[in-house]
C-alpha cells in the first residue's frame, strides 16, 4: 500500500522536469502509468490518500490550473467532402456509448429511456431537413455555428474520428 503511494509520489516528482513545459505541476498524474491520469482512493482510517490509475488518459487537454499555459483548441471550420459514406447502425451505437458520443446524456433520441433534456430533441430529426454538411459541422465543432454552445467539439478535440462523425450524421438523418 505504502509502496504504491511512494511510487506515485516518485512519479509526480519526476513529472515536473519531463512535463514542465506541458502539464502543470499541480496535475494529479503518474507519467509511468499507462493512462497517466490518476484518481484518488480514500482509504478508511488512514492519513494517506491513495492514487490509482484512471481509466482514461486526460493529460492532453487544458486543466483548471493557473499554471496551465497550454491553449484550448480554437474553433475549427470544416468542409464535408461528398459522399457522406456513413453507417447509420454504427452511428446509433456511437450515440449511445459512454466512451464514444454519448449523445443521450443531453439529447432525447429514439430507444433511450432516460435521455437528457439539455440539448435539442433529436427524435424525428429527419423532418428538420438539415444539410449533411451543417450537421457534420455541428458535431465536429459546434462553436463555429454558436460560440456559446455547450456541446463538445467532437472533431476538433479528437473525441470522435471523422468516420465516426459521418456515421452519426447518417444515423441522425435516418431518424424519421
Amino acid at each position, binding site marked *: 500500500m505504502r509502496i504504491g503511494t511512494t511510487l506515485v509520489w516518485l512519479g509526480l516528482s519526476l513529472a515536473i522536469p519531463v512535463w514542465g513545459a506541458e502539464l502543470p505541476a499541480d496535475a494529479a498524474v503518474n507519467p509511468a502509468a499507462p493512462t497517466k491520469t490518476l484518481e484518488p482512493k480514500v482509504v*478508511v482510517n488512514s492519513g494517506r490518500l491513495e492514487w490509482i490509475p484512471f481509466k482514461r488518459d486526460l493529460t492532453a487537454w487544458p486543466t483548471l490550473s493557473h499554471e496551465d499555459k497550454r491553449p484550448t483548441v480554437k474553433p475549427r471550420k470544416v468542409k464535408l467532402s461528398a459522399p457522406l459514406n456513413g453507417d447509420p447502425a454504427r452511428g446509433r451505437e456511437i450515440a449511445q456509448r459512454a466512451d464514444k458520443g454519448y449523445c443521450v446524456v443531453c439529447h432525447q433520441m429514439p430507444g433511450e429511456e432516460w435521455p437528457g433534456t439539455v440539448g435539442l430533441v433529436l427524435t424525428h430529426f429527419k423532418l428538420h431537413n438539415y444539410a449533411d454538411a451543417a450537421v457534420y459541422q455541428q458535431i465536429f465543432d459546434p462553436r463555429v455555428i454558436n460560440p456559446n454552445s455547450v456541446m463538445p467539439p467532437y472533431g476538433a478535440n479528437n473525441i470522435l474520428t471523422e468516420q465516426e462523425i459521418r456515421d452519426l450524421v447518417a444515423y441522425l438523418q435516418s431518424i424519421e
Partner: protein
Amino acid sequence: MKRTFLIALLALVPLVAHGADPYREYDPLEKYEPNVRGDMKLSGSYRHWSDPKNLDWRMAGNPDENWKLNWKFMDPPFNSAVHGGHFALDRGEVLFKELNGKGRFAHCLGAKKGNLKGLRTQYPMYRADLKRIAGLEEVVEMCAAKEGRVLQNGSYDNSAISLFVASKSNGIPIKIDVAKGVMHDAFERGRKLFHMRTGKLNLACSSCHTHQIGLHLRGTVVTTPYGDAAHYPVYRTRYQLQSLHLRFIECNLDTRVQPLMPGSRAYTDLEVFLTALTNGYPVTVPSERE
C-alpha cells in the same frame, strides 16, 4: 531615430505576447451574490431549502422535484440510524483529541481559547503563516505535521478531523468576507474558473450548473451552485469521506478534465467562490450524498 525605436518596440510585441495567457474560452460570465439568497436570481430553488428544518419531504421522493431541495434532505437529522459520516465523525473526534493534547493543534487551526465553535464558518481564510488562502483541510494537514503526524489533504483521517471541527459549527451560518482584499481576488478568480472551459469535452462548471439547472443529464438533474459548501466533508458511498477538493476531482474526471492535487490554488479559489455562495446557510454535518 523615432522610427527605429518604434520598430524595436514592435519587435518586442511577440516576446510579450509569448508570456501572455493562452487561448481560453469562457461561458458568459454571470454575476453571483456572495450569499445563499442569490440563488433566488439563479434557480429559485432556494425557497424550497432555505429552512433546513422545514423541507417538503414529498419532494424528496420525486426524481423530478428532489433537485429543488438541493439534496438537503440527506443532511442531518436525515436517517439518524447511521451512515458512514457518523463513523467518520467519531474517528475525527478521537484523532483531534490525540493531536490536541496540549491545545496547540486547536490554536493552530485558528480556534480562540481552544473553542472550535464557529471556526468552520470562517474557512477558507487567509493564513499569514502560509502566506495564502487555505481551506480547512489544507490547514489540518499543516497543523498535524507540526504535531509530527502525516494527514494528507483529502485523506480519510484529514477529512474526519475537518468533519469533527465542522460539527462544532452545526447550525451556524457560513460567513466568509469576500468584499475586499485577497479574498475578493480569490472569489473573482474562482468565479472566472467556474466559467472557464477545460478538458476533452471543453466544458465549464457553469456550462451545467449555471445554465442548465433543473434539466436532465440522463438520470441526473443539475442543481444550483448556491448553498452547496455547508455539508462538506461529506459521506459518499463510492468515496467514503469526500472533501470539497476531492469532489472537484470527481467533477473533473466525470467531465474528462485532468484533475489537480487537493489544495491546488485553482481548487482553493473555486472553494472560496462556492463557499461565498453558501454564506448565510448553516453548517450541516455529517451529511450523505448519492
